[in-house]
């Protein structure tokens, strides 16, 4: 019973490394989409099949796997972003930091006071390493769209942790959370478009006009 979820966790971690090491934007967007889509499969696998988990799962799948990547790919076409990524720190350094963060997450999760069912589960260390990777992407990437990808990876980490507590979240609230996320990406897409119009690029290093 634990094999499928554990395979999913390992895939999620591998995708984290792919995103942080890849220099191609399109591939990164697809990887984030894949990560969201396979995470969406988890609620029924962990909590068993019920109306609640099926609806949550399909909603998350539609949103994280299809709608949000579609919005992002559309934005890249509109803006005609140069498809290669230039990070603030090199890819090798990013990968090493990512590896350290993932290792740290596993060691840290071992020391956390968890309830007995979760003690040997991979969910919590994977969630933590995904959170750390999301943060790393947010900090080290220069272009607005890559920062959005970092935000999405971060959200995936939270989603993973939230699955453990799915029973406390009524469906209406979960729907609200997912809807907020969709709107967030939509609004960020619009603002990116305007940044591009004003500065002819979405490099956030241009955004330094306002300061003391």
């Amino acid at each position, binding site marked *: 019973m634990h094999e499928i979820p554990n395979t999913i966790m390992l895939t999620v971690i591998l995708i984290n490394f792919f995103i942080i090491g890849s220099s191609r934007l399109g591939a990164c967007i697809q990887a984030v989409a894949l990560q969201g889509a396979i995470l969406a499969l988890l609620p029924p696998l962990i909590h068993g099949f019920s109306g609640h988990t099926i609806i949550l799962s399909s909603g998350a799948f539609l949103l994280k796997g299809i709608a949000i990547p579609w919005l992002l790919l559309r934005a890249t076409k509109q803006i005609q972003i140069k498809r290669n990524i230039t990070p603030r720190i090199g890819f090798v350094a990013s990968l090493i930091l990512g590896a350290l963060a993932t290792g740290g997450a596993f060691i840290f999760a071992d020391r*956390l*006071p*968890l*309830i007995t069912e979760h003690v040997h589960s991979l969910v919590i260390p994977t969630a933590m390493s995904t*959170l750390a990777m999301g943060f790393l992407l*947010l900090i080290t990437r220069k272009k*607005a769209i890559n*920062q959005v990808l970092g*935000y999405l990876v*971060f*959200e995936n980490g*939270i989603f993973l*942790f*939230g699955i*453990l*507590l799915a*029973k*406390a*979240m*009524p469906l*209406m*609230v*979960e729907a*609200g*959370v997912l*809807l*907020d996320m969709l*709107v*967030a990406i939509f*609004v*960020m897409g619009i*603002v*990116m478009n*305007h*940044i591009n119009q*004003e*500065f002819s690029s979405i490099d*956030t290093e241009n*955004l*330094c*006009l*306002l300061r*003391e």
Partner: protein
Amino acid sequence: MILYAIVVLPILGSIIAALLPSDRLRPWLVPATSIPHFAIVLYAIAIRPPEVALGMIGLDALGALILLVVSILFVACSIYALGYLTCHESWGNRTFIVCLLLFLAAMSMAAIARHLGLLWVAVEATTLVSAPLIYYNHSRFSVEATWKYLLLCSVGIALAMLGILFVSYAGLHGNGTAELTMDKILASAATYSKPWLRAGFIFLLVGFGTKMGLAPLHTWKPDAYGEAPGMVGGLLAGGLTSVAFLAILRAVQIMGAAGEQVLCHQALMAMGVTSLLVAAIFVIQQKDIKRMLAYSSVEHMGILAIGVAVGGIATYGAMFHVLNNALTKTSLFLSAGNIHRYYGSKRRCEIMGSLAALPFSATAFLLGFLAITGSPPFGPFLSEFAVLRGIFGGGHFLLGAAFIILLVVIFIGMGSTVLPVTLGPAMEEVESEYFKETALTVISPILLLATVLFIGIYLPKPLQAMFTQAAALVEAVQ
């Protein structure tokens, strides 16, 4: 039923605004929504409806206070908007008005939410619908401010979500049930797992603290308030920060019920003092009047945090200060908006002596400055005095001394900008063609200020009772 109406009414208003084809008629929808909203809010506060939807929404004294603040600000800004939106008729106002009404809906929802997940959804929604409002001026500067606001607040709010999940996990670990409605959490918080609860509180404080603009998480604030239109700045500084403060107070309530006040008060105290310090440093020699107001907002968030951290009469003072800060700050932003538009600049050196050109706005700006810095007989004097009494009453003499010194520094810092801007020698050859003071653009800042003056002289009993009840909720321990 009535609680649903508080959220549904502005949503309906926004749908009508989206469908209405006329740019000329659409601004009237804002007062047509916000005035009935205010009436419903007053009625709801008077009758205190029971909780509905399985404890998901309800109205306690804390929520009522924030709801009242938000609703008053919206009435004031809706009248101002009628005058403001005629200035840029060619820009179109559909997005602006739809987002404005949704902003009201989201803030009202946050005020009545009794479920942490629902509270989160509402607060995140406020970020998303206020981003287009900040971008209204469509310049390089405003796009930068919008991007910073959107990204920082979204990430901050994501951290708050993590905090909510941690609190829920604390329940799962402590007594085997994961709960997210306030009533159930407060009833069983004593059995919660402490490490998870503490971690959850810190994440909630950082997350909603970003939204509230407590230093050192305030970096988006001067940019966003500086570039947003005056009325949006007012709604953010008065309304949205109060809503974020409410979210933090919910976390404080949980920590109190779990017997963990000490950590919670220390954390709030640290952020509060940092906020006062940062505000004092940046308000001196501030060249931009709206950025100056933003740092003043950081200062007042600090005062709120310190008030709650000290406890006792200071908590009462903080509740009172929520109302005072919201009304005064919004009045200041509205009059600063008028000055900004008349001179086409918000830089100190380009708007000398505005009193001659704009008698009403400049007077309101000057009096607003006196009110917000705590001069008697305005309301903020009383609430800041209550906080100060709490500080000295609790024996924190060093803190009290630092508090007074920083407030004086901020008074001098703001004064050195506000006095030349209003009273200085008038500039010649300023002929603003597209802005004249009209009744619609000056009545709101003046009425808000009159209210602050009124509650400074005579505080009505029901309001006083509301502050006392709200403070009791924040202070409640297991």
